[in-house]
């Protein structure tokens, strides 16, 4: 099946078709791509789509939608066909957004400085002074270098005449650039030859520039500045991107609770003490950034951050207070402001917009109510956009009344018949569709001026919505290809050269880990180990349910001790359910999910491969389904080997820093407490076969190699309890825990290693006693209990301060 691109609905004058110049003829900059597609079979395209979908699932690219019935994380929906823009068109857009970013920066400098624009009436005072985004606490602040906007984005749409218009400015914490890069990594892999041949401009430089710029403007400090990415946490819709950016730029990803203000400076709480923070790339709204001076009900902020920003001891990007510019109400004033502040024309025009707070604007807007969309001026008094054309005559009259009663709340905007672009979606891999698109473009501040990212995030409307292009509303995304000029021409292009930011000395610094991350690593270690043991247990139980009743009964006792009772009537089904069904909190699916959640919060610390291994586990098609015993066994095998590879990553892929040590302590504590339980249970019935115990401890092979006889207690104890060299033996865990605690002693305020030394000595003494000592069981119980207790101790003494939440106090 050959898709026929030209079978698209014929372009009409009502819209600008991105692909076709006229029926049957692609635009020049699409010609090469189009020819390639025409020569590709439908199956090949379907394969590519599948490849992309799998890559997205594996790497866990998500966009969270609040209250999404499909669950917290919605997989990123990417269309495999890029949007293509020719070089000269991009040059126009780039020049436009650079000018706009500079203009908006000057507007902020004025509003938070002398406020001339308000005094002169260039901007209506009511619009700014009444807007929740205008932060009085930020007045008088002059950020480093006078830069309020470090990262800027604009939402563009193309009108039927082919011109691009700005629909909205994103000035607080623009999202999307990280997704754009992720899109690029995926799509460039699908069309590698075309990508090279068309000289598609690279976008990754944007992130290096942002990184260097943030460090360049950081307030002077001792040594190399430390920058962090501040996230509201895993429940934010773009949390994936926060981790992505943090990892890409090598900045720690932190939450408000990880930071603290002392002596007018900002610090990161790390397990090694407080580390001064010089730059915060914030990904949360500014009003949530400081519960002391801004919104008191915010649990996400850092009390005192506003004060640090005012003093200039920390660079907050974008500056606190920049959200006021996101009000659509400003769009209508920008042409005049551009003349006033820069003495030039606004290059990239905004779509016609009126703030109804001005009587004349209100009148013009209400006169054309059926042609406009109405949006909120201020998000704190928000509402869903009202589309004039969708209103009936009576609804229109009622709405006009509403506007007249509180005009300042409304912004009216012209509706654009946005341009359609070709799409190839997973739902219809064999047919080319066409959907309206919007383009989000990005710019970053550098000492040489703003620099645009040559590309962007193309957003594709959900089918039903001709006007709205929104990821929140269920649209998808596209990669954006800006075609470069041939090499010679690039030099002459009017784009500013890549900025040469004064190089910061390349001093290698210690990797900085927030205390919260250390705690998460500890739990990651515990969960990974727990899942591993559980999967092995289920495998033995299920196998035994098929062929060995005695073993099955013994393993069922172990399962019960691990909180997982096995139904004695139908053991095979019970074991199988524990492996696949999500009904029991101690079953494998739910334990894997817990592991996945902790891993999610550690994403920026993990390699992509590691994360993919974690992520595949919870997405296995078997989960939640009742499948044959064979399929269940195959699934458990997959799980065991994936979990093995996780411990491989931990052993082979992580630096031995204090974070790694706590991960290992978590892993070993878990292994110690469960292994001790198994031995105790086996000791309860000393006459029974010990084969299951060895298998559970993954030590059957070692046993057979070492001892020729059938498993017997003395040799089993030797191997599983006393052997310092067997990574499954209790003694191995005990020594490991003690050694890691000694290595982290400088971080801890008590000697946590000493009790472990005592436990080691006591356990070693047992080895000298002949036969099955009566002291054995009590010692195992002691080890088990101490392991559990020590986990609590660590939580309370070492991680504890993190569990308190910030409470706002208000006294009148």
């Amino acid at each position, binding site marked *: 099946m050959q898709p026929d691109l030209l079978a698209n609905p014929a372009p009409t004058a009502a819209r600008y078709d991105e692909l076709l110049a006229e029926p049957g003829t692609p635009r020049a900059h699409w010609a090469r791509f189009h020819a390639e597609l025409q020569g590709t079979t439908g199956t090949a395209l379907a394969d590519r789509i599948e490849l992309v979908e799998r890559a997205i699932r594996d790497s866990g690219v998500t966009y969270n939608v609040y209250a999404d019935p499909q669950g917290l994380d919605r997989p990123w929906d990417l269309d495999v066909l890029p949007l293509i823009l020719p070089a000269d068109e991009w040059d126009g857009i780039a020049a436009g957004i650079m000018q706009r970013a500079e203009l908006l920066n000057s507007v902020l400098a004025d509003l938070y400085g002398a*406020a001339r624009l*308000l*005094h002169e009436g260039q901007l209506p*005072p*009511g619009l700014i*002074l*009444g807007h*929740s985004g205008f932060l*009085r*606490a930020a*007045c008088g602040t002059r950020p480093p270098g006078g830069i309020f906007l470090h990262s800027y984005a604009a939402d563009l749409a193309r009108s039927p005449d082919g011109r691009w218009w700005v629909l909205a400015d994103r000035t607080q914490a623009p999202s999307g650039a990280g997704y754009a890069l992720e899109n690029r990594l995926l799509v460039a892999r699908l069309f590698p030859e075309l990508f090279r041949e068309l000289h598609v401009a690279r976008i990754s430089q944007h992130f290096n520039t942002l990184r260097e710029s943030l460090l360049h403007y950081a307030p002077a400090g001792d040594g190399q500045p430390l920058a962090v990415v501040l996230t509201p946490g895993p429940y934010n819709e773009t949390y994936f991107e926060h981790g992505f950016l943090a990892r890409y730029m090598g900045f720690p990803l932190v939450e408000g609770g990880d930071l*603290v*203000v*002392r*002596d*007018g400076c900002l610090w990161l709480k790390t397990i090694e003490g407080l580390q001064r923070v010089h730059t915060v790339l914030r990904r949360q709204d500014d009003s949530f950034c400081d*519960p*002391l*001076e801004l919104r*008191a009900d915010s649990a996400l902020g850092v*009390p*005192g951050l506003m*004060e640090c920003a005012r003093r200039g001891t920390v660079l907050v990007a974008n500056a606190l207070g920049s959200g006021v510019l996101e009000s659509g109400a400003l769009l209508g004033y920008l042409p005049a402001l551009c003349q006033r502040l820069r003495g030039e024309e606004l290059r990239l025009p905004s779509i016609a917009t009126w703030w109804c707070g001005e009587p004349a604007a209100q009148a013009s807007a209400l006169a054309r109510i059926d042609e406009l969309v109405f949006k909120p001026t201020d998000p*704190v008094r928000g509402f869903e956009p009202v589309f004039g054309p969708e209103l009936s005559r009576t609804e229109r009259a009622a709405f006009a009344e509403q506007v007249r*009663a*509180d005009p300042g709340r409304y912004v009216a905007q012209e509706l654009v018949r946005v341009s359609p672009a070709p799409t190839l979606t997973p739902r219809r891999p064999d047919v080319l569709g066409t959907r309206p698109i919007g383009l989000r473009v990005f710019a970053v501040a550098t000492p040489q001026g703003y620099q645009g990212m040559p590309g962007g995030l193309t957003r594709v409307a959900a089918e039903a919505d001709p006007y709205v292009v929104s990821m929140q509303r269920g649209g998808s995304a596209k990669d954006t290809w800006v075609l470069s000029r041939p090499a010679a021409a690039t030099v002459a292009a009017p784009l500013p050269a890549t900025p040469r930011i004064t190089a910061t000395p390349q001093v290698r610094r210690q990797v900085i880990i927030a205390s919260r991350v250390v705690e998460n690593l500890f739990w990651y270690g515990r969960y990974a180990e727990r899942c591993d043991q559980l999967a092995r247990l289920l495998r033995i139980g299920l196998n035994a349910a098929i062929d060995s009743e005695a073993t099955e009964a013994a393993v069922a006792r172990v399962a019960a001790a691990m909180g997982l009772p096995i139904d004695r009537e139908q053991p095979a089904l019970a074991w199988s359910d524990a492996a696949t069904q999500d009904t029991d909190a101690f079953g494998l699916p739910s334990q894997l999910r817990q592991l996945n959640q902790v891993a999610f919060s550690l994403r920026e610390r993990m390699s992509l491969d590691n994360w993919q291994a974690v992520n595949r586990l919870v997405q296995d098609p078997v989960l939640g389904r009742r499948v044959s015993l064979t399929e269940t066994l195959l699934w458990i095998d997959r799980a065991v080997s994936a979990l093995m590879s996780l411990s491989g990553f931990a052993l082979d892929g992580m630096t031995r820093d204090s974070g790694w040590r706590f991960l290992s302590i978590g892993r070993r504590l878990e292994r110690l407490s469960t292994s001790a339980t198994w031995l105790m249970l086996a000791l309860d019935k000393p006459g029974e076969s010990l084969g299951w115990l060895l298998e559970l401890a993954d030590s059957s092979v070692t046993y057979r190699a070492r001892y020729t006889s059938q498993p017997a207690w003395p040799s089993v104890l030797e191997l599983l309890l006393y052997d310092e060299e067997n990574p499954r033996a209790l003694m191995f865990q005990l020594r490991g825990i003690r050694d890691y605690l000694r290595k982290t002693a400088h971080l801890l305020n008590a000697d946590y290693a000493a009790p472990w030394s005592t436990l080691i000595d006591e356990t070693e003494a047992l080895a000298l006693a002949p036969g099955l000592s009566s002291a054995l069981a009590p010692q195992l119980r002691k080890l088990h209990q101490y392991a559990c207790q020590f986990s609590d101790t660590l939580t309370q003494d070492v991680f504890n*301060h993190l*569990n*308190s*939440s*910030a*409470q*706002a*106090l*208000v*006294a*009148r």
Partner: protein
Amino acid sequence: MSASVRYRVVHVTEYQYSEAIASARHLAHLSPRTTPWQRVAHHRLAIDPNPVEYAEDFDYFGNPIVRFAMGAAHQRLVVVAESELSVQPRAAEWSSRLDWSQARPASANATLEVQQFTLASPCVPLLPEATAFARESLRPGRPVIEGLLHLSRRIQQSFIYDPQATSVSASVDDLLRSGRGVCQDFTHFMLSGLRGLGLAACYMSGYVAPLGEAGANQGAGASHAWVAVFVPGCGWVGCDPTNGKLADDEFITLAWGRDFGDVTPLRGVILARGPQQLRVSVQVERLLPGREA
């Protein structure tokens, strides 16, 4: 000019925490503002235990503020603000016969500083109910001062003053629903009505003398709040909807802003798990006329 009145104020805020708090940051609007009608002779802010950081500053509205941070573990915080000040009576200047509608900044070509107080603010949404209520008093053609006094009295009579009724986070809606509230709620309601009519009105935070010319004042044992309305020719005219009167020399000003959120006497953020107990006491004492006043 009539003689000023001298006061001594002691405002004690005490927090008892359910556990030791290792660190905390606070922002206080507890130091009286110097104004054309109010002179601060003496002021002291005592914080126990000793804060590790302490800085005096002014906020956006020009109110004196103190920022402080606690460093060592503490289970109790006591902040004592002690002031001696004198207040000049102004009611004699508030004799304007200006039609209230002429007092609106839109028609008075007012400065930005005044204009901002015509707008809704976080604790003062412009409620149609409040505007309708205010319109009853500010009838067409009525002189502004007369109308404000009328409105203050009607609010006093229409709602029940009840310190148990609301919390610091109560909204204007809560007052309308329950009919009960404290000075903060009465003030927010009046602000909502006045701003809805286009007048510039700000939130005044401070204290009221226990005994006034017309008898005991409500709200003297705690910090107090009232409204000030911008009247061209008179400046800011105080009116107290809790006591149904103009706010003159029986009122001591700490700070002003758009609403309670701008001038909260003591704000703070602590890291804690448990709840905490708060005790506030205010003593306002009228001093005998002294030579230095």
